[in-house]
Structures are given as structure tokens and as C-alpha cells.
């Protein structure tokens, strides 16, 4: 019998699993960056010298409500929250009469054994208190006791001079 040595075969690295994992990571970061954007919209936050610098993770379970003056009418305010439309994390603008139901729905989703939901109010410094009061009232009616106000740590620039 005649034996012939096998032809040398070029070895190729199977990169498909690596690509799968990296694709998953990219999708995760894409979604996470949208979430971050929705929770940390650039707002003209008020200054507070007593403000504590905390990371988002330290606040635990939370619902973030952004309150900013309306572009159309500065006397009105927009209540912006993040929402999941089934495919993307998007922004949702709530009407004042929707705030309480929204907060109640979020509070109901928190397990009873949990530490409880925290409401983070990120309000523009020039918005009228009456607009923030709507959110505070909603928190009270939804039994969300822990309320956090976002502020810029430090003195107002005018006060420094």
C-alpha cells in the first residue's frame, strides 16, 4: 500500500464566539448609554453647598424625574422620564396629571421586602416651585418617602465674588 503524508492544513482561529460576545457587549453599552442620557439630561441644576456627591449606584432603586422649563412657554414645565418602548430606552414627557399614576406604578413594582423606592427630582433651577410641588405631591400620594434633589455641589458663581 502506498501511504502519502497528509497535506499541511492552514489553521484558522474561529472568531465567531468572540464576535458574538462582543456584539452583546456593544448592544449592552448602546442601551446603557441611552439610559444614562435619559437619567442625566443636561439641566441647569441649582447650587447647594451641602450637596453630597454620590454615584447613581449608591441611590439604590430609584425613579428619576427631570423637570425643565418648556421650550414653548417658560412658565410651563416638562416632566421627562425614561421609558422602554420594547426596543429602545426613550424619553417620555409626562403631563402633570400623569405624575402620580406614574410614581404609583413604579412604587407598586418594588417588592415589599425591598428598601423602598427613591425618587430623584432633577429640576432646573429656574423652574417654578409649583411644578416641582406636583412631583412632591405625587411622591406623598404614592407613599414614596425617600426623595432626593439633584444639585450642583458648591457655591453659586455670583456668591464667590
Amino acid at each position, binding site marked *: 500500500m502506498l501511504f502519502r503524508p497528509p497535506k499541511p492544513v492552514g489553521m484558522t482561529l474561529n472568531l465567531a464566539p468572540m464576535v458574538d460576545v462582543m456584539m452583546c457587549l456593544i448592544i449592552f453599552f448602546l442601551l446603557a448609554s441611552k439610559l444614562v442620557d435619559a437619567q442625566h439630561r443636561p439641566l441647569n441644576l441649582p447650587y*447647594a453647598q451641602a450637596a453630597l456627591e454620590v454615584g447613581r449606584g449608591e441611590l439604590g432603586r430609584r425613579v428619576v424625574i427631570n423637570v425643565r422649563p418648556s421650550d414653548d412657554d417658560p412658565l410651563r414645565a416638562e416632566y421627562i422620564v425614561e421609558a422602554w418602548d420594547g426596543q429602545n430606552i426613550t424619553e417620555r414627557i409626562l403631563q402633570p396629571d400623569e405624575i402620580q399614576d406614574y410614581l404609583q406604578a413604579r412604587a407598586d413594582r418594588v417588592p415589599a421586602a425591598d428598601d423602598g423606592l427613591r425618587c430623584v427630582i432633577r429640576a432646573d433651577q*429656574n423652574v417654578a416651585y409649583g411644578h416641582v*410641588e406636583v412631583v412632591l405631591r405625587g411622591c406623598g400620594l404614592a407613599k414614596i418617602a425617600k426623595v432626593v434633589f*439633584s444639585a450642583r455641589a458648591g457655591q453659586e458663581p455670583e456668591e464667590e465674588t
Partner: protein
Amino acid sequence: MRRGLPAPAGERIPNLAPMVDVIMVILVFFLLGASLELATEGVLQTELDPRSGPGEGTPIEIIPAVKIALEEVAGGQACNIYVVGKLLPGNTFEHLYGFLEQRRLAGADTANPVIVAAQPGVRWRFVIKTMDVAVRAGFTNVQFAVSLGGGTRLNW
């Protein structure tokens, strides 16, 4: 002259290396972007009165509280500061800080509530400044008077 034979039909694996390069670049971009977003934010924390909300009776106040009211001036661009129903002498936040600190040094319990009320037109920055002053003066229990509609009353 020898001519090359056609390549044998077999499994063809696409070259994924350029795709991996691109994905790696995108991944590094998002990793860096995400780390930039981890910046912290300043917060002032409070806990609303547990008696608030539906199903609770009218609260009976037995703890002496400091009540601060903000009145809208010049369309909300400024405000008058009332403390326990009287216009604060000096009418500035520095004077309010002095008042609260004096009260603490006089032996006031810092766990007692400081209740902030404001007219609806007062700018949010004044409300936050009031809370900031109270926290800086050492008071840990800052509450907000919230109307159930029709605006906050300032009848203190």
C-alpha cells in the same frame, strides 16, 4: 507552463479579522464613554413625613418645628423669607443661616423638622437654597409643605 488547478471545493470560512477590529474599536469607544458617564452628581436628600399620603388621619403636631415660608417677589425672580410667620430681619439666606444656627446653638433639637413652604411661582433655586441653608446649619430633617391643589398657603 503549468497552470494552477482550481481550488478544491471545501468549507470556506470568511475572514472575520477586519470585523473584529471594527467591533473592538466600537467597544473601546463605549467603554470609555461609559466610564465618563460615571461622574457623580450632587444631591440633597430628605424623607417625606410618613404621615403624608392617603389613608392617614390629620396629623397632630406635637414637635416644635421651624417653619420657613418663601413668598414670590418680582415674578419669582426674588423672594421674601418668613420664619415662623414673621418676615426674617435682613431677608437674605445668610440671615436665615444665622437664625437657624443661633437656634441650634440655643439647644434646638436638629432632628426636629424644618418645614419649607413656598408659593408656586418661587424659583426652585430659592427652595433648594433654603434647604441647603437648613442642612448647613445642622438640621437634618427638612420637610416640604405641599398643597393638595390650589397652591401652597402661607398663612403661618
